[in-house]
């Protein structure tokens, strides 16, 4: 899957949680107050379900997966290995 396709899919997931979100690759979902802590849990759950991957808490912190572009890159690397 292309990075742009992944990013578009992530966009849809975030907007299913916060319909007013304005997003770009540098958006930090918590830092930019797009999602609160409960919504972020929901976001990660939906990302895992949508891309059929498992994401650990340590990866979220270490790779700063709250930033959309980082998440897109992470998914790209993870799905290309499969």
């Amino acid at each position, binding site marked *: 899957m292309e990075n742009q396709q992944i990013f578009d899919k992530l966009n849809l997931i975030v907007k299913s949680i916060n319909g007013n979100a304005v997003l770009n690759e540098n958006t930090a979902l918590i830092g930019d107050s797009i999602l*609160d*802590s*409960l*919504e972020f*849990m*929901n976001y*990660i*759950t939906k990302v*895992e379900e949508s891309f059929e991957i498992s994401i650990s*808490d340590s990866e979220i912190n270490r790779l700063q997966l709250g930033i959309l572009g980082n998440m897109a890159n992470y998914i790209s690397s993870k799905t290309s290995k499969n």
Partner: protein
Amino acid sequence: MNYKIKATEFYLPEKIIDNRFLQEKAGIDINFLENKVGIKKRHIAKDEETTSDMGTKAAETLINKNNIDAGSIDLLIICTQNPDYKLPTTACIIQNRLNLKPSCIAFDVNLGCSGFVYSLAIAGNFIKTGMAASALLIMVDQYSKLIDYTDKNTASLFGDAASAILLKPCSDSEGVIDTVFGTDGSNADKLIAFNSGVKLDHEKNKFLFMDGREIFKFSVQIVPASVNELLKKQNLKINDIRFFIFHQANRYILTEIQTRLEIPVDKMVIDLEDYGNTVSSTIPIAYHNLIKKNVLKNDDLIIFCGFGVGLSWGTVLYRFNN
């Protein structure tokens, strides 16, 4: 022969923890607590108030308000994870305090948020097999005694409560129609009170630990799956059910489950604003309040679903008949 809920009552301790306290203690935003978590206050037991005190008070209210002959109760089940003692069971203590007969079967069930649906089914099978004609269930817990009120993950969620439920035999067409249950012990460490039993871990504290993300994922995945399993088994659709009364974990989880199951708003019961997550009492309290609102009609179908620590879950299809 089947079994049904004949009467319910509940008891809340006097002491209250409000959101202002949690903002000061744990730095949690009040608007977030009210609007997202969906809780305004939680009642908690005083240091000297025991689990048996709370359970006895809920049961006494039930017995007095419904003119129940305590001597007619054949079975007493106490569901708690914070008993007065490791031994004897809290059921034995409450059996004495309520002056129940010596032939009364009395034991504890150690379950948390799935405790009501499990206890309901256990007691129901005593009734169905003729071993008991009248069963008293008491759901009672004091998670406040396990909480570190500076821990953002757990401080805001839990309240203490006791609920009492009287079960009686009924015809096959009413009461508990069907059940499904499940367990995932591989995730037992996702919601756990380390150092609360005989296993000691000196690297952990004694407070309740919750892996919020794993519990969230478990809740929003397992509840829809369990509900759908039961509906499919009974050849029913979401619209056939009048009310869904799920364990009141927090409002956001309930709303996400509602979205995933496509449950219309008027069928989804959310009732935790004034109590918080009272563990095994959330479903009995919500059911009791629904009865008080007079919105249930005979033959209405209700789904109860409890889920939580274990990890453990259970879903019940219930046909209301007054």
